[in-house]
């Protein structure tokens, strides 16, 4: 076991999660595969969304996997960087919009 909480080689062990709950894992992986299949959105668009979400949830495994996936599906570094900015904008905006709640509290409590 690694001394670090995160180990890049763990990404390849994702399917080990089947152990002890194979039926649940199979359902997850089947659904996961279906989600990323070409549909109303292209495979490239889905990979870019996944990359943005990966940054939003700050999952290094997902960032590793979807950086590669975006490149393979034909996205380039400029498009990927814009996707990451979207994640950052939503995260930043989500913090800032809560400032309205703060203002409600301030107004209620202040003279």
């Amino acid at each position: 076991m690694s001394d670090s909480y995160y180990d890049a080689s763990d990404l390849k062990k994702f399917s080990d999660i089947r152990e002890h709950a194979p039926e649940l894992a199979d359902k997850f992986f089947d659904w996961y595969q279906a989600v990323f299949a070409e549909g109303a959105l292209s495979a490239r668009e889905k990979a870019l969304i996944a990359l943005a979400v990966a940054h939003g949830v700050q999952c290094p495994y997902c960032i590793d996997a979807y950086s590669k996936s975006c490149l393979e599906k034909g996205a380039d570094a400029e498009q990927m960087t814009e996707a990451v900015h979207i994640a950052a904008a939503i995260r930043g905006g989500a913090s800032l919009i809560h400032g309205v709640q703060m203002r409600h509290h301030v107004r209620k409590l202040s003279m």
Partner: protein
Amino acid sequence: MLSYPRTSMQARRLPLASSAAQRTTLGQLGDAYNFDEALQEAGLWPLSSTGIEILQVNVGKVCNQTCRHCHVDAGPDRREVMTQETMEACLRALRSTEIPVVDITGGAPEMNPLFRWFVEQCRELGRTVIDRCNLTILETAPHHDLAEFLAAHKVELVCSLPHYRALGTDRQRGDGVHAASIRALRRLNALGYGDGVSGLRLVLVTNPVGAFLPSAQESLERDWKRELWRNHGVKFDALYTITNMPISRYLEWLLESGNFEAYMERLVLSFNAAAASGVMCRNTLSVGWDGTLYDCDFNQMLEMPVEASVPQHIRDFDALLLDRRRIETGRHCFGCTAGSGSSCGGATVDT
């Protein structure tokens, strides 16, 4: 990021410029990288020709570009050029058979001074002629009327454009290549190429700008068509995806960037038996600039000629023997069998 090479490995006198050094580098990988064993496990060994349907003629290594990934180590500093004597031997081989397609490659094949003559001769024989064109050559002064020549002779164009955006294209092929390529594509469109009705077929070829595999060809083609039309008003007929082969300057880049072993592992883990059964070497005969015969352009660059028991030179062409030859393989062959497969005609397996 690595600096962009301005010269061939040969001109830089790198040991890796020799095909022997490249074969040695690939040979140093472990037993898991044995291509023949992978074929045996898939029930495909030994791999043999299914008959020659494409005569691929490499008319020289001279090119106006020095692309980062080039498997030929081509460039302006190269001097290897096919002579008329060798081209005439190719034409004799064509006359003695009904091989329907002549696939002309290089380097920039158009830089061979006899390119136009050779195209005319092949077309007079009634064969489909493919020109593997880098697009920018059409924008150079000595070749200002090349596009019109190609259209007049109904040459099918298979043109390199790694990405529909400038960033990746210029990083792989050189500054300004994307802009020049778009100008050339617009000229080709104006001549009728890519309109789907004139019979002037225009195919684009993309290969990954880095150490990863290409995605599904059909999906990428939709993106390429939409984006090239939306951003540049350019139309084309089809997109071929080609996996980068771990030889020559792409091998140099893999080694320098520390991606070699991971890339090879990816190729091996992505071995696809369906792709292996449809590899291009089975219906192609590749002719080197000096007339030597190979199973494919990649074997040509690794100096691995056709098996010893069949004719080794185009002047000794014998269709009966060459049609049944056994294919020479090596570890680089995993590049053609990974994922959806890869060939000069793009992916070999539908996805």
